[in-house]
């Protein structure tokens, strides 16, 4: 094959705007027509081709629950969509009057193992397990303050799968007048149940009175 014939082949192959010239085999010129808007070039079967770009990560707000006026025995947030990979729960400035320790959990009739490290002046650490156990972050024990303004983020991985173990992590803080300011906690564990997680519970241990304020946001993460 001479150079002039190669050039002629290129001229003959590239017929349309956006065409790409490549070798479909050794010494075999070929044309790849332009892809659609947004497509990216990839490799399939050892040759280039155009394909739809893989979707990037996304965060979708699934629900907003205002706590003001609701009983501290909940709320139970049910009917969580299973269309996402992970679940991100954000609790912002939940508060109520009096002494209230905090609990949160999901699909409560399951075995959950959790360890928490809290900093409230005593360096508390706790762990718990058992059927129906809700997370009770150590740092939130003995709040003993009015308006503790509890805030936290909770991540649950692969919540909608049939995985027997679903790992989770959480971190947060709250105002505690008994210890002169903000206390913090963090922890994690594993939720042992092959059923998809479809509900979330946030409540005080005492379950008396109402929430004075605060908001729970639930996001689906892909």
């Amino acid at each position, binding site marked *: 094959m001479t150079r002039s014939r190669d050039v002629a082949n290129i001229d003959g192959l590239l017929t349309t705007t956006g065409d790409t010239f490549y070798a479909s085999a050794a010494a075999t010129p070929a044309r790849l027509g332009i892809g659609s808007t947004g497509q990216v070039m990839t490799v399939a079967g050892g040759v280039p081709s155009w394909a739809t770009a893989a979707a990037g990560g996304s965060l979708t707000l*699934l*629900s907003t*629950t205002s706590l003001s006026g*609701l*009983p501290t*025995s*909940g*709320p*139970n*947030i*049910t*009917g*969580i*969509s299973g269309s996402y990979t992970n679940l991100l729960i954000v609790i912002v400035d939940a508060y109520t009057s009096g002494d209230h320790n905090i609990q949160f959990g999901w699909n409560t009739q399951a075995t959950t193992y959790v360890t928490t490290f809290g900093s409230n002046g005593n360096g508390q650490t706790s762990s718990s397990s058992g059927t*129906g156990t809700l997370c009770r972050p150590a740092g939130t024990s003995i709040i003993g303050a009015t308006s503790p303004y509890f805030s936290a983020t909770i991540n649950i991985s692969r919540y909608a799968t049939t995985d027997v173990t679903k790992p989770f992590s959480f971190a947060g803080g709250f105002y505690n007048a008994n210890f002169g300011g903000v206390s913090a906690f963090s922890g994690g564990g594993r939720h042992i149940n092959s059923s998809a997680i479809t509900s979330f519970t946030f409540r005080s*241990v*005492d*379950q*008396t009175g109402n929430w004075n304020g605060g908001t729970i946001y*639930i996001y689906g993460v892909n």
Partner: protein
Amino acid sequence: MTKPMIAIHDLTIDEITTRKMNAEEFAQYQSEMTSLKVERDFAATNNAEKQAILDQLGITAEQAKLLLS
């Protein structure tokens, strides 16, 4: 005993319902309150015993922490 109220936020219809606990929820609530009382009674007893020892030694809790640090 009056059954406590509970709020349910059903995301399938995005509505919050506040109602009295049903029988199953109330049974769970009573079980948890019993456990909580046991836990708090134990903590109170424990604290009282610690204070009694501190009183015998004639030192404060802070001084005891300092000695053990």
